[in-house]
């Protein structure tokens, strides 16, 4: 399917916003403006952006701990994302959750998760509600290759298949769970074959090709509303360390550099130029906009108030 110029702009901008958001977040750590940790998806931008850009507000997503691309893809407010990252009152979670718990129910994000695989069972419930109410929408559940070894993955995919729930399970295979290569954590090469064990359709895609991911997601949604759940595995790679502190002794510089060659943003940019969809100038403008959006977010967060201890008991119970 051919995408409109606008859609291409959206995909490119969201990926670039994600990249800048994280580069900036990384810098804020160095500056000591943030405590705690963060998990960056640099190199994996196409996954969350490609999938989420194909969804409607009424489609739900469950994000991972490495989900800035997913949130930006689902049109979350970058200012509030940055404010949450900074632990500010104006953040999505009032500074109580941090970036491992960023959520925006208003755009359909039911939240990022600090627990590997923790969002998978929740996704089946959101989809059950959609099916129960005969909605024409689906729930997209993001998780990593490592999460696919959790019992939650198995129980949830089986449940979704047995009940024909409208869930798109998206496994972002960045080849490692923390320091553990999938070659060590499992004896298979293609995670999508696990779908067959549930009587579910599974596909494996290049996780750095944002356009194809977008198109496949559009198709998947249609398929799911008619036939039930599906597993989509996106092959990609994490450029940075697992989290703030990671000496990366478990992989070679060569391997990292090979994958950097496959940068999803560079690739989309070259595609846009080659196809004559956007001009250098137009793309540069998007780059500039991304820079500015993030700068604005940083200022917004910087100038936002800290949450007050007086409010600590709010939201423990509804």
């Amino acid at each position, binding site marked *: 399917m051919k995408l409109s110029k606008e859609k291409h702009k959206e995909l490119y901008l969201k990926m670039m916003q994600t990249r800048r958001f994280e580069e900036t977040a990384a810098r804020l750590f160095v500056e000591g403006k943030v405590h705690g940790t963060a998990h960056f998806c640099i190199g994996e931008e196409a996954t969350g952006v490609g999938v989420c850009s194909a969804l409607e507000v009424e489609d739900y997503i469950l994000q991972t701990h490495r989900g800035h691309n997913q949130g930006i893809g689902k049109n979350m407010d970058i200012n509030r994302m940055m404010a949450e990252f900074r632990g500010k009152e104006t953040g999505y979670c009032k500074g109580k959750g941090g970036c491992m718990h960023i*959520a925006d129910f208003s755009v359909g994000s039911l939240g990022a998760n600090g627990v590997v695989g923790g969002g998978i069972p929740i996704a089946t419930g959101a989809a059950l509600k959609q099916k129960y109410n005969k909605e024409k929408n689906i729930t997209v559940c993001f998780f990593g290759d490592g999460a696919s070894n959790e019992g939650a993955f198995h129980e949830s995919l089986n449940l979704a298949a047995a009940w024909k729930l409208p869930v798109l399970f998206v496994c972002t295979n960045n080849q490692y769970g923390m320091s553990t290569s999938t070659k060590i954590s499992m004896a298979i090469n293609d995670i999508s074959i696990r779908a067959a064990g549930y009587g579910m359709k599974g596909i494996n895609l290049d996780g750095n090709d944002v356009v194809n991911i977008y198109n496949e997601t559009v198709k998947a949604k249609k398929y799911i509303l008619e036939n039930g759940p599906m597993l989509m595995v996106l092959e990609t790679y994490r450029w940075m360390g697992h989290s703030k502190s990671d000496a990366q002794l478990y992989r070679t510089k060569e391997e990292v550099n090979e994958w950097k060659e496959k940068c999803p943003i560079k690739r989309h940019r070259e595609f846009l130029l080659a196809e004559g969809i956007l001009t250098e100038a137009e793309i540069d403008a998007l780059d500039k906009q991304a820079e500015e959006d993030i700068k604005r977010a940083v200022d917004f967060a910087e100038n936002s108030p800290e949450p007050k201890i007086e409010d600590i008991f709010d939201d423990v119970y*509804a």
Partner: protein
Amino acid sequence: MREITYAQALNEAMSEEMRADKNIIFMGEDVGVYGGAFGVSRGMFEEFGPERVMDTPISELAITGCAAGASMTGLITIVEIMFSDFMTLAMEQLVNQAAKNRFQFGGQGSVPMVLRAPGGSGTGAAEQHSQSLEAWVAHVPGLKVVIPSTPYDAKGLLKTSIRDPNPVVFLEQKLLYRTKGPVPEIGDDYTIPLGKADIKREGKDVTIITYGRMVPRSLKVAEDLAKEGIDIEVVDIRSLVPLDKETLIKSAKKTGKVLVVHEACQTGGFGGELVSVVVDSDAFFYLDAPVRRLGGLDVPIPYNPNLEAQVVPTEEKITAAVKDLL
């Protein structure tokens, strides 16, 4: 008033709420045609159909999370875990997700779900089917915890729990399922607030603070000791979270002697919380004896019926503990 069983009372609570609100669904292992391992949901599948009464695969973690997800997005979900021992498989979704989501998302969303599970020994099901794990969930902010001791309380508390916007862990008592008690007519809609203890028997000499199946047992002891002129007050806390501290403290001040009784293993049990609430209050100055705890022995529940009966507080043990306080 008519008399029905504890199990029937629970069935009526769910059924009446589900008739009144189409957004309520119910899921669990064998809760459909089978009617649940203890028959609590008999007839519900026939009345509400497979869309609302769902037999699940044997996947405690997923169904608990599924319930949480459905409840986060607009439904009200009742999920039955066949034996509370199997909450051990669901703790991640219950504790890290359901209990914390509203807080960690800064107040976005809520999780109106009820996790029902039977606890306790006495059925000969041994170590892995007889535990009393209420202390675990009572230690988790974001969860409410209820344990009813009579059919009347079971129905009234379950209705309130279903209407509560928060995740409620509703722990039923296997050995009480078949006990009967007075309950208002079907459709006569009464509820019992969470966080309100019930003084099941007034007395002036000693206060027994307890819950669940130790309530009828404590009442039996109270009746027997009344003959000896010992006047026992039996306080049924009914919900561990929220806890009605006022009523406990008031009773402790009145009698000056407190015995806490529960079936769960004594070490690390909720009894410690109850004792602490009393002694860390001004009731401390009214106490004329150490505050006693009587919990189950710190052993797994054995299979042999005689052993099984003796590892939890018996009438004899409760009686002895009371006399010890005097």
